Structure formats: C-alpha cells, structure tokens
C-alpha cells in the first residue's frame, strides 16, 4: 500500500485538472484557444484596472498622468454618482433610504418572513421612505425632480413590483376567468403591453399622459415613469402567475368547492399560495428584469444612476473617465441582479421541500 502523504490529495486534484484541460484532443484544443484568448485579453485589462490605475489619490492631475483607470474619480464623486442632484447637505436621507430598502429586501427574501406582517412592514417603510426622500414634517422639502441615483433605482423597482404584483395576480385570474368580457379585457391588456418595448411605453406615458389628463391631475415625471414601469411589470407578472395557476390540479378547485369556499377565499387560501410557490424562480427572474429595466428611465429625463453618472462626468476639473463610471454603475446593477439570481437558484434547489 502506497504511503499517504499530505500532498497526495493535492496531486490527485492537479492530475484531474490536467486531465480535464488536456485529456482529449477537443479539450486540449479548447484549452489552447481559450488560454490564448485570455493571455491576450487579461494582462492589458489587469494593467488598466489595477496596476496602472489611480486608486485613491483625489487629484485630477494624477488621473491625467496615469495610463490606467481613474478610480479616484469614482471615489471623489461617489456622493454625486449615488445620489445625483439631491441637495448635498441632505444626502444622509437618500443614503438611509437605500440602506433601509436593501435591509428590507434582505429580510424579505427569507421564506420564513413571508407573512402578513411583512406586508405591513413594507407599507410602513414606504411611508417612511416617502417622508425621508420628499421631506416635510420637520425635514426640508425636496421635489422628486431633485431625486437621483441609487434611491431612484431602488424605489422605482420596489414600488413598481409592489403594485404590479397584486395587479398581475388580478390580470392572471382575469385571463382564466369563465366570464368572456373579463377574459378578453385581460388578454388585450396583457398582450398589448407585452408586445411593446418598455421604452415605447415610457415615451407614451411621458407624451400622452399630459394630453389624457386635465392639468390639475397630471403627475410629475417620477410618477409617470413609475406608472409605465408598473404597467409593464404587471403584464409580465400576470403571465408568470398564469403559469402557476395552470399547474394547479383541478382537484384543488373541486376540494375547495366541496368545502363551500366562495371564489375569492378559494383563490386566497387554496390556489394562489400553491401557484405562487410553483413559479418562485420565474418570479425572481422577472424581478431581475425589473431591476435592470429601471435603468431605462434615464431616456425620459429622470435622474437615475446612469444620468447622475453622466452629470458627474461633466465636471471639467476631471478628465471625464466615462468607462470607469459606467463600469461602476454596471457593477451596482450587477451586484443587485446577481444576488437576486443566486437567491432564485437557492429557492429552486430547495423547491420540493417548500411544498
């Protein structure tokens, strides 16, 4: 029997890795091709990102002199990048709002906290957020036109999904209704929204609402974008929920009918809890799409992360490091979406146990 040393498992795994990299002609070719690609691409990238970059030196001249990335710009401008044109001395308010939303999101994704209490918690939190952002009652007033950056992205995502979710459930139930008028109305609403790019819905909301509504009722740009995002999300969530409803066996409806439950109680107590559990991964995907979609509000002139990045870049004192800024903004979106995606995977894996 060969003597076991500490290095044996290490050698074995090394041998396995080499086998995977060069074991067959195909794998060897792949390794060489991808290895060549990475050796060409990675060193210059690394030099630009870290080695030649200006990291913390808050001096624009250092950036002009360096051949690498100018991260000190992000560092120096982080307040403006994250909070846009929100009054500087009041930035603690949007910062607190962001922390609150992120903490609540983190809390909400635990399946153990999915109760009615969570709903009340969110409603209370949203009221608090509206007060913190908008002001009044002791705080200085800040109009929505001065909101900007990350809180805009987060609030739009959370509120749009919060309203769109119940609306989507109603639309999905409407689409499966036995009443033809209800069914046709739901189908037209869902399919016409799903057939359009979100950008066109945002344009329609910003162009048409001023014509549709009397001047007194006209909401500001922020609310108009929120309405467009909500309508869009509701149509997509409706289709996800419909998928869940279709997965519920007929026996469940019959059992509820046998108990004498009326329609809404059947839905609320028996059907929806099961239907939504089936489609949790798809719901998480839709939420990721919504997080990414909020980036589009920049096109209708709202100060989200991208527009506050563009505004920061306009400072003539700095050498306008656009690539770094958009990389930073992309990284924020990536962190939000990627953590949600991992959460969806986690729910998918524990799926059977959830039933």
């Amino acid at each position, binding site marked *: 029997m060969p003597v076991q040393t500490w290095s044996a498992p290490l050698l074995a795994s090394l041998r396995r*890795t080499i086998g*995977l*990299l060069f*074991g067959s002609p*195909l*794998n060897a070719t*792949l*390794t060489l*091709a*991808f*290895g060549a*690609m*990475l050796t060409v691409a990675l060193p210059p990238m690394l030099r630009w990102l870290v080695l030649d970059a200006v990291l913390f030196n808050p001096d624009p001249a250092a950036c002009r002199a360096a051949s690498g990335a100018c991260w000190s710009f992000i560092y120096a401008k982080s307040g403006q990048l994250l909070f846009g044109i929100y009054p500087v001395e009041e930035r603690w308010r949007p910062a607190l709002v962001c922390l609150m939303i992120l903490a609540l999101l983190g809390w909400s994704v635990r399946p153990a906290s999915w109760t009615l209490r969570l709903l009340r918690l969110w409603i209370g939190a949203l009221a608090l957020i509206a007060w913190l952002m908008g002001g009044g009652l002791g705080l200085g007033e800040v109009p929505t036109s001065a909101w900007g950056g990350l809180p805009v992205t987060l609030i739009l995502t959370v509120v749009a999904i919060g309203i769109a979710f119940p609306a989507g459930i109603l639309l999905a139930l409407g689409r499966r209704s*036995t*009443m*033809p*008028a*209800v069914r046709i*109305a739901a189908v037209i609403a869902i399919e*016409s929204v799903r*057939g*359009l*790019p*979100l*950008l*066109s819905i945002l*344009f*329609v909301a910003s*162009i*048409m609402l*001023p*014509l*549709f*509504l*009397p001047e007194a009722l006209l909401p500001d740009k922020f609310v108009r974008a929120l309405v467009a995002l909500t309508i869009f999300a509701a149509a997509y969530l409706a289709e996800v929920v419909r998928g869940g409803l279709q997965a519920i066996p007929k026996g469940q409806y019959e059992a509820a009918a046998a108990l004498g439950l009326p329609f809404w109680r059947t839905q609320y107590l028996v059907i929806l809890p099961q239907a939504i559990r089936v489609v949790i991964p798809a719901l998480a995907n839709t939420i*990721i799409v919504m997080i*990414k*979609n909020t*980036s*589009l509000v*920049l*096109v209708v002139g709202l100060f989200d992360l*991208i527009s506050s990045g563009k505004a920061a870049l306009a400072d003539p004192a700095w050498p306008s490091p*656009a*690539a770094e*800024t*958009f*990389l930073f*903004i*992309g990284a924020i*979106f*990536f962190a939000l*979406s*990627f953590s949600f*995606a991992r959460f969806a995977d986690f729910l998918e894996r524990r799926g059977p146990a959830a039933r």
Partner: protein
Amino acid sequence: MLSDARTRSIVIQCALVAAVIGTATLLVNTTFANLQTRGIPIGFDFLTTPSRIVISEAILSYKSRDPYYWAIVVGLANTVFISALVIVFSSVLGLIVGVTRLSSNPLAAGTCRVWVEIARNSPPIVLLIFLYSLWWKVLPPVGEALNPIPGVFASMRGVMVPSVHIDMETAGVALIFLAGLLLLVARTAGALRRFRSRLSWAAAAVLLLGLWVADAGFWTDWPVFAGSNFQGGLELTPELSTILIGLTLYTTGFIAEIVRGGVLSVGPGQWDAGRSVGLSRTQILRLIVIPQMLRVIVPPLNSQYINVVKNSTLAIAVGYPDFLAVMNTIISKSSHSIEGVFIILGVYLALNLTLSSAANWYNRRIAIVER
C-alpha cells in the same frame, strides 16, 4: 339576487365594460379638450409633407426634404436591420457558447459562464453606454485601423466591411429564375426530395457566383485605405457598431442558456438508443438529438428574438436613429403626438406578431403530434 352565479357574472361583466367605456370616453374627451385649447390639429395628412428632420445615418437613402412617411420607413429599416443582424450573430454565438458551457474543460466552460452571468445581470443600456465610451479609448485612428479579417477594418471612425450591391433588374431576373427552379425541383418525383433543398441552394449559389464573376448587376465593393480615409465598402459608424456588438453580446448570454437547457433536455439514453441501432455520432445528432432539442428551444428562442426587436430601441442611448428615436423626433417636431403614438404601437405590434407567427408556424411543424 347576487347569490345567483349567472346573474352575478352578468353584473360583473356589465360593470367592467361600463368602466372601460367610461374611462375611455373620459380620456378621449379630455384629450380633445386639451388639443383644442393648445390649438393642435389632428389627422394623418402631415405624413406626406416634407419632414425637415435630420436622420444622422440610415440604411435607406434619406434627405431632410423627404416626407414624414419616408422618415418613418427609414427609421423602421434601421430597426429591422439592427434586429436581423443581432439575431443572426447572437444565434450563432449563443449556440457555440451554450455548448461550450457544457464542456468538461474548466477553462472554456468558466469563461463562457462569466460571459453568460455578465450578460444576464447587467442592464443592456449600461452595457451599450459602457462600450460606446470605450470606442475612442480602445480603437486606433483611421490611419492605423485594425484589420482582423481581410476586408474588415476597425478604427475610431467605425468599422468598414465589404458591401454587396445588386441592381434591381438583376435581382428581379434572379428571383424569377430561382422561383422557377424551386418550382421545378419541388414537382420532381420523390426520389429527388432529399436533394431538392440542397440542389436549389447550390443553384442559387452558382447563379450569384456567375453574376458576380460576370460583373453584371451583382458586385462586391471592398474597403481600401486611400490617402486619409477609406474608399468603398460599407461604413458601420461607432454608434451602429456599438449597438450591434453590445446587443449581440447581451442576447448571446440568453440564447446560450436556452441552448444549454435544450442540450440537457435530451437525455443520455437517447444517445445510447441511437448507438444500439448502429447510428453514427453525426446521425444520432442529426436524426435524434437536434429534432428533440429544437422542440425545447424554439419557443424561448422566439421570445428572445422578439426581445431583440424591443431592445433595439436602446439605440437611442448612443444616438443611433432607430424607429423609436425617429418617431420621437417626429412627434416633437410635428406635435402630432397622438398619431405618432398610434404609429409606434402599431409598428411594434405588427413586427412582433410577424416574428411570433413565423416562429409558431415553425414550432407547429416540429412539435410532437400526440394522439
């Protein structure tokens, strides 16, 4: 009375219809009142008047004295052009990346996985703006243009590619000839059936090659660097190139996942079964695996293609005049916002319906027919 299910259903439906009609009437009335107070005329007559708007680049030829309807067609052509190219490129790349992700090679699978994760978790608009901001930083000036493939040059001013020209008469003659050939082949006996598609493709290729060699009505124009700029070829501006590259990278991430799911959905038992009846690897792939895979991937692929058409509206972020950008200019210039919005809605619905009915037709052809 409301306890009777039929009565209740009628009451609910009447209430819904009344609410819809009521809201619609209210909106239409307010709209007309608003239009009247602002003195905005309504109607589609403006479409034939000269637009005088600027479209910075276009696939079809456009001058600012052309009428509005032509500006709309030009914008639509740009959208269709972007979408078609992105769909083709990302399908090919998505197939490669999706299959490579399943490879046992950790280096190849890992690189492809990073690509997929970045594409799926970043907003496409941020990706486009980021790539656009890189353009002048990464690419050399025109004089030192990169030449990665013969005939393709990349520089700060954009990408030059060989262009293909065909004059209308030749195209007409060629089409009629091809149609006749297809008809002829399609009517020939069953023994020829298996060859017919290959045969007609070959005939088409020979025909085009013949026209090209004879230099009659069909020719290619290669970009050549002369003096201070390129002559000939087709110029893809930095804006257009950014959209094509960005949307392709983005869509590829999604298509790769669909392909991966499709490959995984065909169980290893199918390969065993194929081998047990003595089929070769390519035969198993062509006769057993790919047909089953197509069934799984065609519906989600279709929705990705529709997403490409929708995402092409992001062209506005880098200033490329796609259909929506042109419509936005037209609306602000002509103040015919209601007509403009109807055109926007109609065109996107028509585009998506065309795409999805084509895919549905294909899907019906390949779907399993049960019972």
